C-alpha cells in the first residue's frame, strides 16, 4: 500500500516536472560532424527538390498539353516524329541525371571524409557498451586507478576529439545523438571506433537507434558537453569512491541497499556492492536523469522507479522492490547523497 502511495507521489512529481532531455535534432547540429551532415542534407535536398519540381512540371505540362476528355477508347496516334525529337530530350535528361548523381556522390564522399576523418590529437577515449536497455560508459585510462565508469550520461570536454570505442554486451544497439553526429551500431563480436567533437556546450539527447527488444523505446542517453575545466572537475569527482553517508537516514539507506536486491545488480564503489548487471550507482546523484534518461533524478521518481520499474518500463531488467516505506525513504536519501 505504501508502495502505492509512494508511487502516486512519484507520478505527481514526475508530471509536475517536465524535463528537458536536451537537443535532439538532425537539423540543429552542435558539432562539426552533424553540421557537415546538415549542410550536405540541405544541398542534396535542394538539388532533389529541383528535380522533383521539374519532373512534376513535366508531367503536369504533358498532361495539360495532351489531355483529352473522353470515356470511350480513342483512336491510336502514330507519331514517329515526336518520338524522334523526344530521344534528344531523353538523352539530355539522362545526362543531367548522371551529372546530378555524380555531384551528389562527390559531395557525399567528401562530406563522409570530413565527418569521419577528425584530428586525433589528444583525444578523450570513451568505451561505450550497449546493454539491454542502458549504456555503460567507461573512460579507460593508462593509469588503471583513473578509470571512470558511469552510465547513460556521457560527459565530454568541448572542442576536443572524442574517440568512442563501441561494444555490445547482448544484442545490436546503435549509438545516436543526432545533434552531434550520425549513428553507429554497437555490434556484438565487433569492436569498432568512431569520433566526434562538440562545439557548443550543452546537453544533447541521444537514443538507441537499432531495435533491441522490449525497452528499445526507452534507451536514452545524454552527451553533456562542458568546458575542459568542468569536465576535469567532473572526472575528479567520478574517480572518488561513493560518499560516506552522513545522516542516520542515509546510513540506514545504505544498509537497505546492501541487504536487498539492489546489490545483486548494482555497483557502489566503496561498499560491498559490485555487480555489473545494472548501471554503476557510485555517483548516481550526479546524474540528471535515471532509468536510461527516462525519469528525472528526483526523490519521487527514484522511489517510484525502485518500487515498480515495470510500470514505467515494462520488461526492463530491474526488478520491483516492494520496500517498507521507511526503508524506501532511507534508500532514496542515501542514493541522493551519492553525488
Amino acid at each position, binding site marked *: 500500500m505504501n508502495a502505492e502511495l509512494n508511487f502516486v507521489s512519484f507520478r505527481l512529481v514526475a508530471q509536475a516536472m517536465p524535463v528537458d532531455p536536451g537537443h535532439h535534432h538532425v537539423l540543429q547540429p552542435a558539432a562539426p560532424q552533424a553540421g557537415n551532415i546538415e549542410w550536405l542534407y540541405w544541398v542534396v535536398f535542394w538539388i532533389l527538390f529541383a528535380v522533383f519540381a521539374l519532373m512534376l512540371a513535366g508531367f503536369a505540362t504533358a498532361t495539360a498539353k495532351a489531355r483529352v476528355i473522353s470515356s470511350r477508347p480513342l483512336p491510336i496516334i502514330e507519331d514517329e516524329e515526336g518520338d524522334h525529337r523526344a530521344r534528344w530530350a531523353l538523352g539530355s535528361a539522362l545526362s543531367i541525371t548522371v551529372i546530378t548523381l555524380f555531384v551528389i556522390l562527390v559531395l557525399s564522399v567528401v562530406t563522409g571524409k570530413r565527418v569521419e576523418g577528425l584530428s586525433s590529437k589528444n583525444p578523450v577515449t570513451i568505451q561505450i557498451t550497449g546493454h539491454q536497455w542502458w549504456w555503460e560508459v567507461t573512460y579507460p585510462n593508462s593509469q588503471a586507478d583513473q578509470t571512470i565508469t558511469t552510465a547513460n550520461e556521457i560527459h565530454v570536454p568541448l572542442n576536443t576529439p572524442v574517440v568512442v570505442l563501441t561494444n555490445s554486451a*547482448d544484442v545490436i544497439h546503435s549509438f545516436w545523438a543526432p545533434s552531434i553526429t550520425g549513428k553507429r551500431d554497437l555490434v*556484438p563480436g565487433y569492436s569498432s571506433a568512431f569520433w566526434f567533437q562538440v562545439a557548443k556546450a550543452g546537453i544533447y539527447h541521444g537514443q538507441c537507434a537499432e531495435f533491441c527488444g*522490449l525497452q528499445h523505446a526507452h534507451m536514452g542517453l545524454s552527451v553533456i558537453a562542458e568546458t575542459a575545466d568542468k569536465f576535469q572537475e567532473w572526472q575528479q569527482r567520478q574517480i572518488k569512491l561513493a560518499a560516506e553517508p552522513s545522516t542516520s537516514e542515509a546510513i540506514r539507506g545504505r544498509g537497505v541497499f546492501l*541487504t*536487498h*536486491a539492489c*546489490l*545483486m*545488480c548494482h555497483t557502489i564503489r566503496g561498499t560491498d556492492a559490485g*555487480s555489473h*548487471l545494472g548501471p554503476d550507482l557510485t555517483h548516481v546523484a550526479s546524474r540528471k536523469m535515471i532509468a536510461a534518461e527516462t525519469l528525472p533524478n528526483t526523490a519521487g521518481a527514484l522511489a517510484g522507479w525502485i518500487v*515498480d520499474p*515495470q*510500470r514505467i518500463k*515494462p*520488461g526492463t*531488467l530491474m*526488478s*520491483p*522492490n516492494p520496500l517498507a516505506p521507511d526503508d524506501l525513504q532511507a534508500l532514496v536519501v542515501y542514493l541522493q547523497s551519492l553525488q
Partner: protein
Amino acid sequence: MCKPLHIAPLLMAATLLASCKREERTLRQPPPASETLNTIQISGLNPGANSIPTPPSSNMYQESAYAVSEGQKLYEGYNCVGCHAHGGGGIGPALMDRDWIYGSEPGNIFATIMQGRPNGMPSFRNRIPEYQAWEIAAYVRSMAGLLPKGVSPNRTDHMNVKPAESSTSEQTPIGITGLPEQHK
C-alpha cells in the same frame, strides 16, 4: 471462394493454442503466491499411512519460455553459474543430473535458493526477489530436462560448453524429493 479455407485457421489455432502459455511474457509480476510454499517438502517420508502429498501448484514460470529464459540470465548474472557451472557443478553440486539433494520440485528449488542449505548454499532471501527465484527454479529444472522442450532454452550466445537445455535428456529425479511419484 474462400469458404473451404475457414477450416484451416481453426485447425491451426487449435494446435497453437495448446502452446500459448509458452509465449506468455509477464513483464509486471503479480505478487507471488506464497501458499505454494506450504506444499514444499524435502522429505519423501509422509507419516500416516499412504498419505498423498498435495500436488505442487505448477507455477506459471514453468510454462513460459520467457520466464525460463529470464531465469537463465539471472542464473548467470547472480553467479549461480560460479558454483554450479552450467549444470555440471563445481563448488556446488551438479544440477543437470538425477541427483536432487533437496528435492527437484519447483518449490524445493525455490526454498533452496531462499533458505540456503547447510553445506555451502547461501541464502538469497531478500537478495533475490521471489518471482526471480521462481524463474531461476524453473530454469534449473530445465537443465535436468524436467521442463517441456518447447519451453527450455536453446543455446546461448556464449561458449558452447554443454548441450542446450532444450536438448538435455530428461533425468528421473532421485534423492530427497517431496513428491517422487509426480514425474512422468
